[in-house]
């Protein structure tokens, strides 16, 4: 482990990071047994993940071509977390996340066109070009943002959940954030509040091992982040974030508990980002090794889910291939759409600062 300013005792501990990332999905015995997912839905989940992956690959290319400017954080490797979580929710449930948000936006049904156009800063983007990559949203689709201030959105989720409960609506809020975000004070403030108010909310910490260049082992006194919820007597669990079925099952259980019992849950999904922190960060950088990246890439959530679907005779190699082609087409069309869309008119600068 790299040098650390963390308490000395942590230096000697063995990291347990990948312990919950069990055997890869395709090698497990009967992982779909007792899982309430139709074939149709399983296929949709695969497609959702693949769309995110292909979208991100293109976004990286477009960034290289300076079609996308500023900051851009890709979701490659973590797709199972948002997609498995989405599969466990209803359309009207609220979703929100941090700035690594392309995947969450896509899986919530914001079109690849609108997302790409937003990245390009075009008027057809989901925020009319005002927000960019880190601030995707569509309130009608209940995708309540993209948020660039780390941890800043965690209490918003409590507000959505409060409103649902107050109005006796059935909607649940699912709030995603990174490992490093769990070190902001507002994380603790809000978890306590959510537990106290018995809010229908599920907090999902996407522990991809790093906050930018800092390994979570160097930033947490206790490494099992999910155990933090014990301080608030909140149901909690650790999830294999590379295994979409595990994500689905545990998120579903939490979402049901939120909906039916108004009890919040804290999940920690162990996952991994295959790319650098943002586009300016190399893939493995100084803070992690190439070997580690390779090791985690072998647990690719999409490849392994594809293998499982083949093994279960749900999809054939041909199906996978034609799906991929179709998705690539969608993404290419999104590029064209973004490319051809207009720049926002300069009058837009003054609109929406206030309601009127």
């Amino acid at each position, binding site marked *: 482990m*790299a*040098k*650390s*300013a963390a308490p000395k005792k942590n230096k000697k501990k063995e990291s347990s990071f990948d312990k919950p990332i069990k055997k890869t999905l395709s090698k497990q015995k009967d992982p779909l047994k007792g899982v309430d997912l139709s074939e149709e839905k399983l296929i949709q989940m695969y497609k959702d993940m693949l769309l995110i992956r292909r979208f991100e690959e293109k976004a990286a290319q477009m960034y290289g071509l300076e079609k996308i*400017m*500023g*900051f851009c954080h890709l979701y490659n490797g973590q797709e199972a977390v948002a997609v498995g979580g989405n599969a466990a929710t209803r359309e009207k449930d609220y979703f929100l996340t941090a700035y690594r948000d392309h995947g969450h936006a896509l899986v919530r049904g914001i079109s690849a066109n609108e997302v790409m156009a937003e990245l390009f*800063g*075009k008027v057809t983007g989901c*925020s009319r*070009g*005002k*927000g*960019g*990559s*880190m*601030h995707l949203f569509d309130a009608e689709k209940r995708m309540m943002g993209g948020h*660039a*201030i*780390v*941890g*800043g959105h965690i209490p918003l989720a409590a507000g959505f959940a409060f409103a649902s409960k107050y109005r006796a609506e059935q909607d649940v809020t699912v709030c995603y954030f990174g490992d*490093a*975000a769990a*070190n*902001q*004070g*507002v994380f603790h403030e809000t978890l306590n509040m959510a537990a106290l108010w018995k809010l229908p909310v599920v907090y999902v910490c996407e522990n991809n091992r790093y*906050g*930018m*260049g*800092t390994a979570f082992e*160097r*930033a*947490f006194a206790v490494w099992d982040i999910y155990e933090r919820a014990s301080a608030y007597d909140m149901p909690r669990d650790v999830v294999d974030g590379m295994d979409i079925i595990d994500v689905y099952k545990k998120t579903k259980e939490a979402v049901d508990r939120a909906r039916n019992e108004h009890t919040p849950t804290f999940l920690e999904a162990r996952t991994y980002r295959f790319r650098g922190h943002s586009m300016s960060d190399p893939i493995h*950088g*100084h*803070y992690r090794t190439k070997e580690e990246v390779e090791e985690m890439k072998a647990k690719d959530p999409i490849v392994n889910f594809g293998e499982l679907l083949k093994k279960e005779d749900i999809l054939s190699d041909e199906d996978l291939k034609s799906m991929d082609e179709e998705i690539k087409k969608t993404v290419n069309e999104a590029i064209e759409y973004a490319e051809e869309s207009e*720049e*926002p008119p*300069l009058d*837009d*600068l*003054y609109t929406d*600062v206030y309601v009127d």
Partner: protein
Amino acid sequence: MPIQTYIEAISSALWEEMERDKEVFLLGEDIADYGGAFKVTKGFVDKFGEDRVIDTVLAESAIIGAATGAALVGMRPVAEMQFADFVTCGFNQLVNNTATTHYRWGLPVPMVVRLPAGGNIHGGPFHSRNPEAWFFHQPGLKLVAPSTPYDAKGLMKAAIRDPDPVLYFEYKYLYRRIKGDVPSDDYEVPIGKADLKREGEDATIVTYGPTVHIALDAAKEIANNDGYTIEVLDLRSLMPFDKETILESVKKTNKVFILHEDTVTGGIGGEISAFITEHAFEYLDAPIKRMGSLDTPVPYAPTLEEEFLPNKKKVVQVVKELLEF
């Protein structure tokens, strides 16, 4: 004299101050192994060790609060906000503990908070802010905002050695775009002293930070095309600001244009304008003009951001209006 970029000058100042005084230490997110988001502290941990170059957890409130505590017992922390925008998460510590403890206890709080500020990098609403006005309004804090490598180094040294808490605004847009002479021997740029960047007779542009370069370009263009000479005053320090030098210039040129990248309304320009009218009203031949970014959040779309920010064209136009008044 060696030539350095703006960012190298900041690094040099930190490096030399760390060598000079072992009570100086750095803390911030990803500043050690990663070298900082902008690589200001690249290589520092190898030289000074992890006890003095501390990768903190992601918690701005704790960073600023802990720095304040260490400063109160005599250490000299330099805390980094990864972007100036994130100081919002440490607001309570800064405006309550950091700013007011000396007033009540009489104990100095010799610390620096580094704030990589400003737009023009397409960072969108939360990676582009210029938050100086919030802190300008808080007695007990000093604010500096260098525009050149020379000032970046000299002001950092002065800030670290100053007994009061200093917010050090550094501009992401200038990091690698601006180069200049930087002495390798020890020097300070005194806090509170403006720098007359260009002399003139017909009007004064009072500015600081990245818009200093816009003002200089505009002044040059006006001199070439219209023959007017424009004085450009770089404040360098925002709190305290150099009242004497401002008044001198106003008395000489009788026309004032105040320019900053922060949004206009409630910006520092308003206070400077009030100060001038209070103290040199009889010298003014025209109403004071102000320009900043538009009074809106920072838009992402590069086309919108370009229009949102001040630029040379807009500055030339307003200065001409002032000249023709």
